[in-house]
């Protein structure tokens, strides 16, 4: 009886800890990540720097789409990692979100530009259709289909655990 109580005192909390361990290590416990795929919605928006219109037809290759804005501090934090991705040869398309043109261009000039091209979405209309709720958010797109939608800062941990498995699975960026 006494030994039963003694072992219960230790085993009950350990059981609780084991339970939490299970929850935390459940597959893909990354709340910002959304793995539902959907097609890039139809849109027509102009580029940030030049007066060229882009539509959804232009996006049928493989790329990352990064939602950013000059007012967004986390984007500033994320910028370093995006530069690294750019240097590693990943094609990153910028979606400039609820921002004004001159601020956005000033930002790119000041911190250098990791994007291959930038779409200007001052009203956030494309962003809304894509389910964007803030900045930064990042989409992984293949052949006009979004494979991953990540809300929040992408850093090495997120990249390795959320994006890389999907990229490998779909044999992208080869």
């Amino acid at each position: 009886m006494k030994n039963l109580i003694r072992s219960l005192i230790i085993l009950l909390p350990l059981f609780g800890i084991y339970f939490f361990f299970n929850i935390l290590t459940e597959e893909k416990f990354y709340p910002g990540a959304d793995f539902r795929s959907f097609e890039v919605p139809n849109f027509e928006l102009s580029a940030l720097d030049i007066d060229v219109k882009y539509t959804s037809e232009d996006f049928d290759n493989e790329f990352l789409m990064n939602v950013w804005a000059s007012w967004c501090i986390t984007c500033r934090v994320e910028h370093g990692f995006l530069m690294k991705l750019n240097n590693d040869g990943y094609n990153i398309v910028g979606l400039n979100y609820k921002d004004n043109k001159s601020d956005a261009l000033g930002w790119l000039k000041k911190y250098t530009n990791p994007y291959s091209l930038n779409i200007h979405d001052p009203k956030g209309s494309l962003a809304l259709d894509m389910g964007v709720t803030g900045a930064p958010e990042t989409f992984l797109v293949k052949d006009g289909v979004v494979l991953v939608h990540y809300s929040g800062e992408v850093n090495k941990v997120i990249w390795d655990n959320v994006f890389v498995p999907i990229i490998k699975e779909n044999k992208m960026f080869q």
Partner: protein
Amino acid sequence: MNNLRRKRLLSVVALVFTSFLGVFLILKALNSNLDYFYTPSEMINIEIPDKKRVKLGGMVQEDSVKRNGTNISFKITDFNHSIDVSYNGVVPDLFKEGSGIVAYGLIVDEILIAEDIFAKHDENYMPPTIEISKK
């Protein structure tokens, strides 16, 4: 000593009995106060018992908000399905079309009669069910 033993035994029995009773009562209270959490798509596919309050999480659908006196009606959507919601009262500050909210109340004739509307104090908030259903 014998007397002491009997006393101890008695108190152990009483303790076990009351703790079982206590746990039983607590679990009973717990079970009658559970609020189920659904997304619109989930809610369409299940039977919800009468007089069972539920929480419905999703986004306020664009162009669906209608006001009538102190009453407000709108649709909550998860981009696949939507459910009509009616609420009498002051909606939270962060309530707007396209924002993530949770409505709590009874389903009457396929309309959620909300008693409470919650929005999170974070602009990047998405209702947890949407997060879950993504997985």
